[in-house]
């Protein structure tokens, strides 16, 4: 069935390192992917998105890579800062008419000073 999941439940990095958060998806009909950041006690916040006709998209300190061949999505955070500590979710949208997103379980990133 359709599912979006993350390879690693937790990731701990040192401040200044680059972080990579991975996400596997199983629905080959997904045409849109999005990453959210959720800080403790808050609602999810948009980080970056990518459509299936792209392989890579860059934002400020973040890059999303999409490998449709192996159904894999990754979020790269450059020069990770303590403020990046949060839970990160990937989500996907099926190419059908619905605009619903299916969320993965999330991965907690801890940045050590």
């Amino acid at each position, binding site marked *: 069935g359709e599912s979006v999941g993350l390879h690693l439940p937790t990731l701990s990095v040192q401040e200044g390192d680059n972080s990579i958060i991975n996400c596997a998806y199983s629905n080959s009909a997904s045409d*849109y992917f*999005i990453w959210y950041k959720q800080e403790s006690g808050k609602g999810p916040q*948009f980080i970056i*998105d990518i459509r299936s006709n792209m392989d890579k998209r860059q934002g400020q300190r973040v890059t999303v890579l999409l490998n449709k061949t192996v159904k894999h999505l990754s979020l790269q955070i450059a020069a990770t800062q303590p403020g990046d500590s949060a839970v990160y979710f990937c989500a996907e949208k099926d190419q059908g008419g619905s*605009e*619903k*997103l299916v969320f993965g*379980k*999330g991965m907690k990133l801890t940045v050590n000073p």
Partner: protein
Amino acid sequence: NAGVTQTPKFRILKIGQSMTLQCTQDMNHNYMYWYRQDPGMGLKLIYYSVGAGITDKGEVPNGYNVSRSTTEDFPLRLELAAPSQTSVYFCACSKGGGLTYEQYFGPGTRLTVT
């Protein structure tokens, strides 16, 4: 603009009680959503709406009801609260129309049913 607001922030219910979780958005977005998030888990879609007067079930609709009488408001109703409904509830909205699928989230309502 306040974005998406939710009330209350916290609530404790006894088993069998009812309550309504309020959600209001001032972004003039067509689509609205209700999710629940259990500890250490992702978001599961309860109900969604593509416009005023139109609602549809998500992945986990049992035990909940919604209405959408205006573009701005999308209340979630729990009729007979059960311990399994202990969770954090998030409301979200999106513009709709296919140009962007980004959803904007409210701060959440933490509900405990005992």
